[in-house]
């Protein structure tokens, strides 16, 4: 569907298939299916995928000029509205693609991991839509942070399996899902939630998400009459980043910014093995995690560190290998935005544009705010998701801090409880 017949497992030094042997046959089967159905449109897979993305997902999605931000920054700011995708984030592009692929492959069961719960809800929706039983692994801590999403998955008929290992976040949930898969590969497809994991996942997820930049590139030329100077997207695992960048990668004049979660600080507590950020591109190093060689947050020994971000969806110690490679080659610039700046941007976008973004998304707007003078005349920011899932976190996190321009939070604490 996108880039012809690439099927190598690597992006420069990154990528590969570092997984237990028990998973290898599944991964080979998947690679084969990816090449036939996704790259080759066998049995009309791509056509059906596009049709379902349109009818079920609501694509194409608008590229909206943000009038008030444009005025504020004296720059034409365009918003790619992935928040309007069914489910409320870009995640459905991938989840729908993979669940549909599972159907073409004759699988009978879907499993997935989730952090913020957005990939989990997207997968649960896609599984319900295509009539698959589905189980979602989610860290116990994330279950608490993202309660509404847990409920949504259950409503869609999925089981949500709490993962208590480690700190109970995304990293542990991925490990646990891989374990399930190792025991169930023959009947089960593992819908991974970002451009991470062993080949062919990084390429395949990117291809499913590339619809974002395919649309945006065409839309910006129609609306602005030219290509953008800069494209911004927040990066957790990197799926919306890669999706937003993909079709702009060959356009050398377009600067691409992957905005990572700077958390509370960019420095790292080596002793405790804790990174107070999730900026694997900016502060991580080369290593092997969850099936791929890529940039990861690790201590000197190679143990994976606990990451941190105010937004659970960015709270991950790794990043997609292709993105790591594009950073190494200089094509993508990794930048960071900290918790406070993201919260400020969250409130700014909510008040000035009438769009309540996901906290993940807010990071991209934090970067725009701090660096708008360096981004050129036409800027695209990907609104990767909506913030409904984050309301409780925002009340809590905003109350704990001094956030410029936020409405008073105390009025909410009592309301409705």
């Amino acid at each position, binding site marked *: 569907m996108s880039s012809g017949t690439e099927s190598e*497992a690597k992006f420069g030094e990154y990528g*590969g*298939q*570092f*997984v*237990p*042997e*028990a998973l*290898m*046959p*599944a991964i*080979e089967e998947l690679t084969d299916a990816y090449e036939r159905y996704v790259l080759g449109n066998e049995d009309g897979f791509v056509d059906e995928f596009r049709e379902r993305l349109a009818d079920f997902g609501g694509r194409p999605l608008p590229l909206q000029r943000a009038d008030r931000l444009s005025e504020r920054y004296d720059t034409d700011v365009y918003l790619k509205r992935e928040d309007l995708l069914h489910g409320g984030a870009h995640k459905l592009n991938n989840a729908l693609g993979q669940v549909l692929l599972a159907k073409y492959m004759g699988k009978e069961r879907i499993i997935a991991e989730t952090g913020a719960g957005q990939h989990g809800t997207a997968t649960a929706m896609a599984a319900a839509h295509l009539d698959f039983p589905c189980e979602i692994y989610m860290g116990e801590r994330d279950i608490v942070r993202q309660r509404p999403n847990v409920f949504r998955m259950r409503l869609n008929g999925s089981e949500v399996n709490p993962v208590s*290992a*480690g700190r109970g976040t995304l*990293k542990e949930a991925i*490990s646990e899902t*891989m*374990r399930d898969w*190792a*025991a*169930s*590969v*023959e009947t089960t497809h593992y819908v991974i939630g970002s451009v991470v994991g062993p080949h062919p996942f990084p390429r395949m997820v990117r291809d499913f998400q590339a619809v974002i930049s395919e649309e945006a590139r065409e839309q910006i030329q129609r609306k602005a009459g030219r290509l953008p100077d800069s494209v911004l997207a927040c990066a957790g695992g990197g799926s919306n980043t890669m999706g937003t960048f993909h079709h702009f990668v060959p356009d050398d004049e377009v600067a691409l910014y992957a905005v990572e979660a700077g958390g509370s600080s960019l420095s790292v507590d080596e002793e405790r*093995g804790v990174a107070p950020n999730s900026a694997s591109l900016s502060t991580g190093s080369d*290593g*092997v*995690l*969850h*099936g791929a060689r890529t940039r*990861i947050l*690790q201590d*000197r*020994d*190679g*143990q*994976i560190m606990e990451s941190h971000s105010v937004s659970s969806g960015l709270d991950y110690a790794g990043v997609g290998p292709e993105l790591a490679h594009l950073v190494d080659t200089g094509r993508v610039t990794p930048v960071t935005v900290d918790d406070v700046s993201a919260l400020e941007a969250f409130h700014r976008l909510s008040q000035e544009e009438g769009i309540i973004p996901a906290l993940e998304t807010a990071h991209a707007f934090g970067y725009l705010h701090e660096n708008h003078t360096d981004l050129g005349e036409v800027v695209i920011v990907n609104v990767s998701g909506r913030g409904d899932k984050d309301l409780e976190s925002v009340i809590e996190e905003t109350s704990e801090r001094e956030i410029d321009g936020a409405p008073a939070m105390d009025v909410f604490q009592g309301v409705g409880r």
Partner: protein
Amino acid sequence: MTGRANSAALAAAFDEGPAFVPYLAAGDPGYDASLRYVEALDRGGADVIELGLPFSEPIAEGPTIQGAVTRALDAGMTPERFFEFVTELDVSAPLVCMTYYNLIYQYGEREGPTPFVERSAAVGIEGFVVPDLPAEEADPLREACDEHGLDLVFIVAPTTRGERLERIREQVSGYLYVQARLGVTGVKADVSDRTSESLDRVADWPVPKAVGFGISTGEQAAEIVAGGADGIIVGSALVDIVAEGDGEETVEERLEATARELKDGTRRGFEQRTPRAERP
């Protein structure tokens, strides 16, 4: 039954009939206790010992071994401490280090697996099992092993077939780890149907085949060896004993007794089976 091996000790371990290969995570639940526990396995009759170097994301392990890994990490186990541990350990069975690739890859100042292999060789480790390192990515580690006289054990799963099987066959040395069932490590009540099928697929390989995943009793050990395995690998059943802690009997006593039972099982199985040589 000799096969391809860099380590003479490992080769020898499989030479006198089927081998009993227990696993424990080094440093579980603490450094000193763990030393005693591993030594108890040795006294109990271990022919090879797989010693786990704990990694924070043990994606191939079930809850039992995850627990062991977490306890060991919490108690301060690191690669450096692991090498000290091996140095201090007083056992006669050859040691195989079981860990994940990132720890091997990150170790030392130079890039790549060589520093880790050098240090392992220096402390007397005979080989490695690296569950997340596929044959395709194994060249650098394989080469370092060859250079330092260590073996690189690979796992074959019930689903491994065709080209993949070939690539593993080319890479493996010391012994082959035959995974008895799909999934992750953990105790199971019965022996999987797929074991003999898996063994058939690798019957003519020039390495001993040790079967693991889910074995916990002498009975199972006997059955598997009778079915043609050259060894059995037991992890979760032993880790369970460590996790339970001292009771009427101490952990050491129970580990030693269980090891003995499993070792006896392998012997019994060997006696039951028609010698390979006599097969049609």
